[in-house]
């Protein structure tokens, strides 16, 4: 169960707990107290036991009491909430900078040395500052175990920061509704010992986990990391975007500047589709949905992707 993770999982767990359990505790006491009182009145003063009601108009002293006491309680609640929130605005100077690029429907984490990773990998006890970048709609980076969440708003410079305190693997969810695959937009945080992290960090700049062998395996791995399969399938099923099945070398009708033209799927076209997806809109598919991958995909990668696309034609 998530809420049982240790207090040290991140620097926010304990402040969250203070605010949450104080309010919940006071609430529970009040709820029980008021419910019991109410039930007692119902039992004690029902028609059978008390045939004639005593008319009471009100009592100003009581009214003042039950305005002021809840007000004080509420102010304490507010203060605890505020106190727990305040540190989120002040990242330590030595925080490590990571950028997350969110798009429909995956996260990609970019490190300062150019390394890219679909999972967030961080060393323990090192403050992490994440710059939030969205390419299309609003997403939200949510790490339940760390009790932290921040919306990733397109067109805005924002960050979030936290201090992971326990090694382990934790879930990241997208917590702002962003369309069809919103519930599949997740990733992991991998908190490592500083040593392990250093090794990971120093590995080849682009360590995509290649699962298969043969032609196209690397291309497929790249596409998996970039999240292409959220919209495209390799097997002919139509998702949001056109399927890759039998795509390579085929003729496609596209809209270019509002006019229909027929193009052949060649390296030039694939490259343009990835780097300027809105230049040619495949007929029958929405514009503006696929965003440019210029910031994360290199020409080299595209060559690998094409390699992979070639394997998807049935001979």
């Amino acid at each position, binding site marked *: 169960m998530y809420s049982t993770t240790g207090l040290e999982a991140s620097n926010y767990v304990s402040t969250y707990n203070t605010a949450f359990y104080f309010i919940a505790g006071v609430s529970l006491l009040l*709820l029980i107290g008021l419910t019991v009182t109410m039930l007692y009145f119902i039992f004690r003063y029902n028609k059978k036991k*008390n045939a004639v009601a005593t008319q009471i108009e009100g009592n100003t002293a009581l009214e003042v009491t039950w305005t002021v006491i809840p007000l004080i309680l509420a102010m304490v609640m*507010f203060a605890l909430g505020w106190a727990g929130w305040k540190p989120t605005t002040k990242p330590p100077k030595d925080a490590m900078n990571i950028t997350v690029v969110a798009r429909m429907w995956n996260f990609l984490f970019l490190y300062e040395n150019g390394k890219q990773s679909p999972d967030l990998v961080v060393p323990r006890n090192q403050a992490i500052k994440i710059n939030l970048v969205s390419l299309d709609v609003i997403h939200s980076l949510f790490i339940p175990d760390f009790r932290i969440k921040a919306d990733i708003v397109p067109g805005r410079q924002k960050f979030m920061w936290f201090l992971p305190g326990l090694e382990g693997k934790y879930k990241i969810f997208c917590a702002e509704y*962003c369309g*069809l695959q919103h519930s599949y937009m997740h990733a992991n945080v991998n908190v490592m010992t500083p040593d392990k992290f250093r090794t990971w960090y120093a590995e080849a700049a682009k360590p995509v986990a290649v699962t298969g062998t043969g032609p196209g395996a690397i291309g497929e791995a790249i596409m998996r990391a970039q999240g292409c399969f959220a919209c495209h399938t390799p097997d002919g099923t139509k998702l949001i975007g056109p399927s890759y099945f039998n795509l390579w070398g085929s003729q496609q009708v596209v809209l270019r500047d509002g006019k229909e033209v027929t193009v052949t799927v060649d390296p030039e076209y694939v490259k343009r589709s990835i780097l300027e997806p809105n230049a040619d809109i495949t007929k029958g598919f929405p514009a503006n949905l696929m965003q440019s991958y210029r910031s994360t995909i290199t020409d080299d990668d595209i060559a690998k992707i094409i390699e992979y696309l070639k394997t998807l034609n049935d001979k």
Partner: protein
Amino acid sequence: MSTQKTFEEPSYLEYKGKYKGIFSWILSTDHKRIALLYLFSLMTFFIVGATLGLLMKLELIAPGKTIITAQTYNAFFTLHGIIMIFAVVIPGLPAVFGNFLLPIMIGAKDVAFPRLNLLSWYFYVIGVSLVLISQFTGQGPPDTGWTFYAPYSFRTTGNMLPAVFGAFVLGFSSILTGLNFLVTIHRMRAPGMTWMKMPLFPWTLYATGWVQLLATPIIGITLLMIIAERTLHIGFFDPTLGGDPILYQHLFWTYSHPAVYIMILPAMGAISEIIPAFCHKTIFGYKFIVASSIAIAFVGYFIWGHHMFTSGMSGTALYTFSLLTFIVAIPSAVKVFNWISTMHKASIDLQTPFFWAVGFLFVFMIGGFSGLILGALAANIHLHNTHFVVAHFHFIVFGGTGYAFFGAMHYWYPKITGKMYDSRWANTGLIIFFLGFITLYGEMFFLGMRGMPRRYYDYDEIFHTGNIFSSLGAIVMYFGLAVIIINLIASLKNGIKAPSDPWGGKTLEWTIPSPPPVENFDEIPVITKGPYNYK
């Protein structure tokens, strides 16, 4: 003061007007008939919305695809949210019980603008129809959630325009109802009914009326901007054109937070009527209850930002919104304490409406307390957009407004229909419903605390157990509701005739026959005493 037993006049149900058959209803300007028009349309939409809720819960009973696809699920919660919010709970108590009872409770023959009243019902039906049309036309149903957040709402290929425009028309309907009630209350109170002699239900309608009037235009213009954004690419909320999506959220919640008080205030009013009637006792702290209604309406206008705590607003804004959120809880607290105090030294007649009121108090407190947790910044950061929020608002919207609606239904049923219902079935239904309710939504608090985001079609295995409980609760609740509704419908035929004052209520509606005559009063009463005079 009594006009009882002088009716040669037919009741409003039998009255033969200019038109016959169905036209005598859909062209009637009688506030009582319009109330029933609302009741029927609203219950129909409620059942549609609730069935969508049930289907969503069935989908969520297990991870992966269970019964529907992701696309359908997204369309479902959007339609569910739009229907439940804009077509059920916002019009809810004012349009049905307000229309029926407001004129009677203040001693008037009708509302100030009867024809406008009928017009707002037409707007209501047109609005919902547009929303429903959007489901079946264009390139697939809208899938943005009821909040229509930019920029997704103009990126999606869903058929947004009719839905957004439908919501706009529904807003118009709501404005006209509020306007009508405000003028009615200002101008048409019976002689002698000073502000401080007015019953509490009209008082809450008055406070609600102002919120409807002053908040709804903001969403109206916002929805128009979304339409302009989609059709003309005007750029207000589109970051690629320099617009700010967060500004959209500001505008949306500037209305939609006050809207939650449009939903709850009349519910509180109905509870304030039911409790004294069954306690046979004047309400405790009348003036404070009045004042708290106004305070809720007023302060409630300035706390919209608590829906945007994680959006990256400035610290100052966060601070202000969180503080005000806690302040708005105080008037609600005052009400709860006064209601419970009314039961002290009362002589309580344990009837179905009173049980609904007790149920209301219990679930409203849970909903309200969870609201406090969400209002605290540190807690909100974690809980925002999780099922904790879903639990909060079902507890307080369904548990608050919904319970009050059913309470009011059972309280005024004899007055409206002239029949008594079978209270054993009514109580049985209530108990089943209550148990289902707690299982269904109670579990969602824990799901949310563990981090299950909302609007998730599919979820991680760790959330499975909780979801099974929750879904089973939905099924139980379904049966409870069916018992309640079937009982009410069956009693129309089988119920015994209702006397004019079955519960011993003291407000004006109980001084006239059940069902009321067309003109309500033979003679406009002259008011000399407070509304809950049980001496």
